[in-house]
């Protein structure tokens, strides 16, 4: 693409592939932009409305999580993981707990595993619901789908609050189990929320799913092929929308996921619509998992009695633990040198890596598509920049 200016007079005819007739407009979208989901920034070069170049700029929320964790105890790192992907703190806790458990070889009691599944899947529900709402917001729906999504999210947050004490920053899991057991009446409340959720999904679908505008806007936009997705390390619903059958709940069977029967939906086109629909379908599968987990929840302790929470010093060594977070593969890579602080604390952020293909997805699309492609990737800046 050539930048055409007034001064050099070029009489040679335009190259056949040079379709840029106008001057390119370089716009920076973000860091303060209504639909970059935080302080994300893209330096976009536009030819009219078409994107010819897009460079993401990160780091506006780089708050040194990894460095801070190197100076914190293993327990002290736990609340920081809440703030990674601040929408789904519980799955972050889980991934971190899993990594520490792998590092130190800790067994988790049965009941704690079930509680982890229940809270984790609830997290997935509220994350996906919120995401779909935000996606619609990016598409220009003036808040309604987002409000409905948040209406349901609040119900889940109430459950979290009743269980863990906080709406967002749950700090619920500990290596070796969970922090607290469910209070009385919680399971019934949770059951009510879970039973009510399909109704909300139906409402959501009738509001949006067959909406022509939505389909016209999202289908065929931001396509990622299967090969691209795997090569770029795309994970989670986004990878599955491209047809990659890789759900860590099935692959790693971490926790007790092999006990539940649930299906993994796969997309074919890998476009925004597939990503959006995959999340809706995953919510339905999560509800299935939740029903089974609620049914089978055993009694028992919730903490491994042998695990020392305070002054925890794992043996020197390293471990990579990963779970299927709502956004994709959330991994923690820990190196211990035998001291109470992790020597190296690395987060494998699904949001960041899912953004790898952002430019490829956006090239040739319209300005309006950028925001929905970005929305469909489902990023949280706390995790992207850490």
């Amino acid at each position, binding site marked *: 693409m050539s930048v055409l200016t007034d001064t050099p007079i070029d009489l040679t005819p335009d190259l056949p592939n040079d379709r*840029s007739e*106008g001057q390119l407009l*370089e716009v*920076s979208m973000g*860091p*303060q932009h209504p639909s970059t989901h935080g302080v994300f*920034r893209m330096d976009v070069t536009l*030819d*009219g*409305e078409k994107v010819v170049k897009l460079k993401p700029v990160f780091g506006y929320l780089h708050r040194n999580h990894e460095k801070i964790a190197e100076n914190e105890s293993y327990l002290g790192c736990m609340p920081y993981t809440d703030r990674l992907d601040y929408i789904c703190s519980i799955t972050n806790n889980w991934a971190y707990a899993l990594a520490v458990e792998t590092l130190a070889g800790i067994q988790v009691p049965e009941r704690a595993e079930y509680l982890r599944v229940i809270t984790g899947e609830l997290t997935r529900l509220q994350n996906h619901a919120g995401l779909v709402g935000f996606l619609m917001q990016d598409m220009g729906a003036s808040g309604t789908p987002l409000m409905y999504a948040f209406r349901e999210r609040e119900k889940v947050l109430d459950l979290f609050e009743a269980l863990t004490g906080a709406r967002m920053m749950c700090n619920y899991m500990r290596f070796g189990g969970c922090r607290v057991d469910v209070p009385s009446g919680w399971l019934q409340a949770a059951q009510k929320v879970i039973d009510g959720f399909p109704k909300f999904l139906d409402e959501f679908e009738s509001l949006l799913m067959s909406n022509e505008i939505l389909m016209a806007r999202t289908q065929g936009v931001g396509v990622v092929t299967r090969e691209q997705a795997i090569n770029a390390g795309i994970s989670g619903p986004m990878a599955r929308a491209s047809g990659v059958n890789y759900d860590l709940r099935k692959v790693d069977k971490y926790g007790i996921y092999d006990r539940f029967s649930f299906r993994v939906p796969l997309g074919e086109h890998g476009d925004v619509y597939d990503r959006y629909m995959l999340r809706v379908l995953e919510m339905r599968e999560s509800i299935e998992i939740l029903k089974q987990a609620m049914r089978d929840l055993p009694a028992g302790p919730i903490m491994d009695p042998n695990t020392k929470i305070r002054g925890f010093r794992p043996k020197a060594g390293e471990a990579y633990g990963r779970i299927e977070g709502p956004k994709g593969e959330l991994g923690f890579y820990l190196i211990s040198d035998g001291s109470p602080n992790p020597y190296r604390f690395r987060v494998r952020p699904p949001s960041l890596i899912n953004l790898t293909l952002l430019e490829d997805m956006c090239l040739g699309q319209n300005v309006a598509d950028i925001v929905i492609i970005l929305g469909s990737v489902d990023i949280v800046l706390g995790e992207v920049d850490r």
Partner: protein
Amino acid sequence: MTNPIYLPVIVLLLGGAGFAVGPLALAWVWARKYSPQKSGPIKNAIYECGLESTGDAWIKFKPGYYIYAIIFLIFDVEAVFLLPFAVAFGGFTAAESIAMLVFLILLVEGLVWACQKNVLSWS
């Protein structure tokens, strides 16, 4: 000789102008009296998502927009002919209507041509 029918329109024009300028004047008075204008190089710079805006916004746009304006102009003129026709339509026979139809079809032909040449597809 001024046609009195336009007088209310002129009054409306002035009223509308007053409606727009009046509050602006009021705001100006308020700013003068109480709330001083505070300009500054950063404040009065162009907003671009919190960054310093680089490069000029007044660039050469791609002509993709232009074709729409041309077609609009042509159809605008067509509407100019269509409106008197429509007004007098009640008294017309089929022959006159067909004459208008021919006129319309001529223009539609242009539109169809534009459609087929993909001129009308955005960027």
